[in-house]
């Protein structure tokens, strides 16, 4: 028994070494926590900044839409029938009468298509914020594993 006890005793590490090992494990863990936290803080900051930029951009879009609407209304006022008639008269034009026209038969002439103020829009669906800014590290890891 004494031989066995001596054997264990000889394999035991010195107490100070064990303490250093525990300290090292603690410090490494702490460092990991700090690094992960730093990642989170960094990503959160970037997300918040991007969100803020988007908010500002939304505001700009709204302001531009207002400006476009105002300009359309101004343009329409400038091009109103009455305004155009006055301008045409000032330029020396007069309304056409049926007798003023000379009709010529043009083979294969095709009539212009009717006015369409809005073409059919191709809707593009894209996320406002990239997943990198919204997913957690776990989400990212799972996505990476799936890929």
């Amino acid at each position: 028994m004494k031989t066995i006890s001596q054997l264990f005793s000889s394999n035991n590490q010195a107490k100070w070494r064990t303490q250093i090992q525990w300290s090292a494990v603690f410090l490494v863990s702490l460092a990991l926590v700090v690094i992960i936290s730093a990642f989170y803080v960094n990503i959160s900051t970037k997300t918040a900044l991007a969100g803020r930029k988007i908010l500002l951009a939304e505001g700009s879009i709204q302001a531009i839409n207002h400006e476009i609407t105002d300009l359309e209304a101004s343009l329409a006022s400038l091009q109103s029938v009455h305004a155009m008639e006055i301008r045409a008269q000032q330029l020396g034009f007069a309304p056409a009468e049926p007798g003023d026209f000379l009709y010529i038969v043009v083979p294969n002439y095709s009539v212009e298509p009717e006015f369409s103020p809005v073409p059919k829009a191709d809707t593009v669906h894209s996320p406002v914020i990239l997943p990198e800014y919204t997913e957690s590290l776990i989400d990212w890891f799972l996505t990476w594993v799936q890929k």
Partner: protein
Amino acid sequence: MINPKRWRYLALQVLLVVMGVLIIARIYIYQVSPQAEDYRIGTEYNYVTQYPARGIIYDRNGNLLAGNITVYEIGVDQVMVQNQGNAEAIALALSVTIGLDYGTILDTIMQTYESRYIVLADYVSAESIAKLEQYMDELDNTPGTPLTSRLDGIGFKSHFERIYPENSLASNLIGFVTRDNNGYFGVEQTYNNLLAGIPRNVRIPINPTRVEEIPQIEPGTALVLTIDREIQAAIEEILDDTLANTGSESGTIIVMDPRNGEILGMTSTPRIDLNNYMDYLTTFQGGTPFNRAISQAYEPGSVLKVLTLSAAIDSGAVQPSTTFFDTGSIIVGGVAIHNWNGGAWGMQDMTGCTQHSLNVCFAWIATQTNTENFYNYMKRFGLGHITGIDMANEAAGRLKLPGDTDWYPVDLGTNAFGQGLSVTPVQMIMAASAIANQGKMVQPHILKATIENGEMQLKSIEIVGNPITAQTAHQVNQILVNSLENEASTALVPGYSVAGKTGTAQIPVFGGYDPYQTNASFIGWGPSDDPRFMVYIWLEKPQSSTWSSEVAAPVFSEIVSKLVVLMEIPPDQVRAQLAGQ
């Protein structure tokens, strides 16, 4: 050996642990407390009601008829203003730059309200706001400006207001929008729900990482109308000139495409500048309809003979070649009916009866059709019912029917030439579209397409009935063409074949008919072989002449002369060449 200082380390460790636990517990309590919940609710979202921009209105060629402009609401933070003591400065600034009343503004700011934000003025123009901002900048850039002279606490909110760039053009059919975003009359009322969009109570997250949750408010649906701005302007100008020349009390003109029911132009008097819609109260007094074309029924007179003739030919009661010997009088229901001039016109075929607009002949035609058939046809032509045109406040008119307490046998005779019943101009043009469109009656409509979410949806054409056959339509069409040409009517247009009929109607008054005043109407279309437009004219109580052939028929000619230019319709001869190539 036991370290004698170990208990101190242990005590320190325990103390730190206890402190840590207490901090974590406190954090937890903060997180779950009711106050925290209130704080979260108050700071996570802004709750606002968003009003979408009202949908814009175009004519068929994309010209803007109704749009929006940016205007501003001016408000103040009452708490900030009272703390800063700058109420007088704000009142003075708004008085000088925007023209608001100094005393009213000051009183408003100094009163007590539940909310700290007070609205001082709304619908302020962008120019006025620019002036105010310039004044504020000057104050900010002036060193030493006391707090009581600054304009801190003042704020602006932008929103849209309706604007009509064409002012009074097409006002009768567009209608207007009041500041509460409600449409009144015309298209603005009929399509109010589409145009106004749906106001939504939304919550806007304050957290910028949740920006995706910010709801997108789509503007109201835009409308493309069937009217052509140039045609509309032309008929309004012609109508105004006509009223001035004939001394008529009011007037109405409709131009419609008989192939599909699209209203190309529609006007009546009076009209208002839609940007000053409060003028409605002074302009439309005493129950004056906003749009006579759809809202005012009247006895149309001889223009209705086109329907009587159609019914008679379609039912087989008469043929175009059928003759009638006009003695100048006919008894229907025990009452004598005479011609417009009291004369006898002798032997006439259907073209002659139409050309001379003989009441006696048409009363006879109605009796030949027989009472039941006649009224069945009138109902099939849509008389007595609204047309369903997509405009507000349509009137149904009145078609008395056998069995009604106020129907008498003589009504068959008088109804045959458009007296004793009432119709709206739009009812007449819809009914006659069957003659111009090979028997197919189209529903008049003003909406050509809607634009929503960037996509345009075209409105489909609606055939609302086939009251007569294509053959009947062709025969009546030819009779109307011939009657105009034989008469050398003032409605004719050189180079173009048109079909049409005048109508001079007596006006019912209490106890009978007005012996002096008439309603002059005209219905016509062209080119007669391939109609692309129908025109209805109604002049109320013309003074220069009581006869439609003298006041309304020339208006038709003038309108058609404009239409063939604006619609690029070549003369008959050129069209024949084109057809033959």
